[in-house]
C-alpha cells in the first residue's frame, strides 16, 4: 500500500502538493537545475528540449529556465480560466513550477553523452571527424543506447508530470484533457523555443540532445 502511494506520488505529486509549498519546492529544484546547467553548459531550449549553450552566463541559463516555465504557466492559466473559473493563482504558480522539476534529471542525464554531442556538432560544422571516429566502438554504441533509453524514460515521466499538473489545474477529464494537453504542449514548446532564441541572441545551440 505504501509502495503504491509512493509511485502514485511520483507520477502525480499534485494530489498532495499545491500552492506555495509546491512553488518553493519547485523553485529550489529550478535553481539547482540552473546551477548544474551553468556548470555543464546545458539548458532547456524549449519545453521538451535540452541543448548546449556556448560559454553561458548564469543569466542565460536562468532566462531559458524561466521562459520555459513562464510560457507553460501562462498557457495553462488561460486554459484553467476557461475550463474552471475558481482557480487560484498560487496553485498555477506552484503546480507549474513543480512540474518542471524533471528537467534537472534531463540535464544530468545528458551529461554522459555531452562529449559525443559536441563531437557530432564539430563534425557538422567543420567536417572534423577526429573526435567522432574515436568514439566509434561497440562499447560506446551500447553506452549511448543505454543513456538514450534512460533519457526517454525520464522524458516520458516529465510529460506525465506536466499532464497531471495540467489536469489538476484545469479540471479537464478524459479524451478532451489529453487532446487539449497535446495542443498546449506543442504550443508551449514552439513558443518557448522561439522566445529563447530571440532573447538569448542565438547563443543557445540549436543542436538539441532531446
Amino acid at each position: 500500500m505504501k509502495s503504491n502511494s509512493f509511485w502514485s506520488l511520483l507520477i502525480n505529486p499534485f494530489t498532495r502538493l499545491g500552492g506555495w509549498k509546491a512553488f518553493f519546492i519547485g523553485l529550489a529544484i529550478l535553481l539547482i537545475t540552473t546551477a548544474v546547467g551553468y556548470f555543464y553548459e546545458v539548458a532547456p531550449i524549449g519545453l521538451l528540449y535540452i541543448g548546449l549553450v556556448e560559454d553561458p552566463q548564469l543569466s542565460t541559463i536562468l532566462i531559458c529556465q524561466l521562459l520555459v516555465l513562464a510560457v507553460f504557466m501562462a498557457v495553462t492559466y488561460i486554459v484553467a480560466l476557461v475550463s474552471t473559473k475558481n482557480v487560484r493563482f498560487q496553485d498555477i504558480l506552484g503546480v507549474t513550477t513543480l512540474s518542471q522539476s524533471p528537467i534537472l534529471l534531463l540535464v544530468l542525464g545528458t551529461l554522459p553523452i555531452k562529449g559525443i554531442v559536441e563531437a557530432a556538432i564539430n563534425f557538422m560544422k567543420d567536417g572534423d571527424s577526429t573526435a567522432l571516429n574515436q568514439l566509434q566502438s561497440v562499447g560506446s554504441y551500447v553506452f549511448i543506447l543505454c543513456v538514450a533509453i534512460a533519457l526517454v524514460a525520464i522524458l516520458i515521466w516529465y510529460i506525465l508530470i506536466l499532464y497531471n499538473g495540467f489536469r489538476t489545474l484545469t479540471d479537464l477529464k478524459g479524451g478532451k484533457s489529453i487532446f487539449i494537453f497535446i495542443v498546449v504542449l506543442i504550443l508551449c514548446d514552439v513558443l518557448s523555443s522561439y522566445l529563447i532564441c530571440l532573447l538569448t541572441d542565438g547563443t543557445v545551440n540549436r543542436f538539441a540532445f532531446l
Partner: protein
Amino acid sequence: MLPCYCPSCQAQLKVKSLRCEKCETEVTGNYELPTLALLSTEDQKFILDFVRHSGSLKEMANQLNLSYPTVRNLLNGIIEKIKSYEK
C-alpha cells in the same frame, strides 16, 4: 446504504412507503429521493465534512491530506453530479 437505483434496470428508485416503528403507522405514496441521497457514500461524507469545516476548502485539504486544487476538483465533480440529478 440506501438503495437508489433499480438492481434490475438501473432506473432511479422512488420511495413507496415509510413506517413509524413506534406505532406501526405506514405512510404510502410516490416520493422522490432527496438529491443528496443519490450521491455515493464517499460524496455524502465529503459534503458533511465540507459543511463541518464551514465550507473551507483549505481546511478540507488539510484534513484529507490532499492539495487545494485536488479538493476543489472533487467538489466540482460533486457539483456536476448534483446538476445532472436535478435535470
